[in-house]
């Protein structure tokens, strides 16, 4: 597996940093791809490979402005992969950021938190 997967931000897709060497894992910006399956397929593949030989600790951040419903499903899959890693007793933390007024993103984060079993913090920035 490659040590990192970096995807630059566009108008309708987020910036993705999956950097094993530097321990940076982040999805930020807007996620509105018409085909979320296609866009997230390399991300999910990388994550599945990462959890086979993971770092001692993994800190993952979501910092999104907008995402469509299909992306929600894919983001949830990313979190499910992290949940698998977490159950292997390696520390995993997830921070789901939202801006002050953004109830939609905040509520979505709180719902996802209810659905998964891993340290998951919903935080304002």
């Amino acid at each position, binding site marked *: 597996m490659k040590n990192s997967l970096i995807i630059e931000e566009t*108008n*309708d897709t987020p910036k993705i940093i999956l950097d094993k060497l530097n321990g940076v894992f982040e999805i930020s910006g807007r996620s*509105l*791809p*018409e*085909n*979320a*399956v*296609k866009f997230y397929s390399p991300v999910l593949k990388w994550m599945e490979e990462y959890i086979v030989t993971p770092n001692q600790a993994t800190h993952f951040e979501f910092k999104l402005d*907008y995402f*469509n*419903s*299909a992306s*929600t*499903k*894919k983001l*949830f*899959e990313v979190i499910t992969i992290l949940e698998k890693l977490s159950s292997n007793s390696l520390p995993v933390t997830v921070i789901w950021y939202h801006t002050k*007024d*953004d*109830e*939609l993103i905040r509520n979505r984060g709180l*719902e996802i938190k*209810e*659905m998964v079993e891993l340290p998951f913090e919903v935080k304002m920035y």
Partner: protein
Amino acid sequence: MVLDIYGFYDKMEQNNIMLSFKGDITSDLLTSILQIMEAKLDNWQEEPKVKKKVYNVLVECLQNLYHHMDEMSPNQDDKIRSAIFMIGKIDGQYNIITGNYIKNENIPNLQKLLEDINLLSKEELKEYYKAVLNNGEMSLKGGGGLGMIDIARKTGGKLQFHFTPVDDNYSFFSLNINISQ
């Protein structure tokens, strides 16, 4: 026949339509419409909360059209790939209207989905949303089956829809969504 353009204009004016489009819904068009609407919402200095909601619902509506509109073949030679989209604002309430051809055979599933969603309470919608989010199924077109549930949750109202028969094979599906603030 002379097109009654004033008639069109007047109807749109009465319904406070701020943007409308009829034609093929392409990926580029989606991007353009979203950019225009985002600029308009910014211009009107719409509250961030309202702006987010309207923008989010718009994305779902337009992507629904993009993924689900059926090509209409009135005869063997012709194919019409076309839909209609409008957004208006009346009494501070945003209105999104979409219309597209649908094969009659596809009506029952869609109708059932919309009727089911309309029967659910806020709490039940949330549970339904979570169940679909959790099932991991994705369509060939890359959708996740969450679109309509998401729209219903974000607008908090009932989905108004109608199927108008066109011919033996096709109907026209219209959806009217009100976004209360």
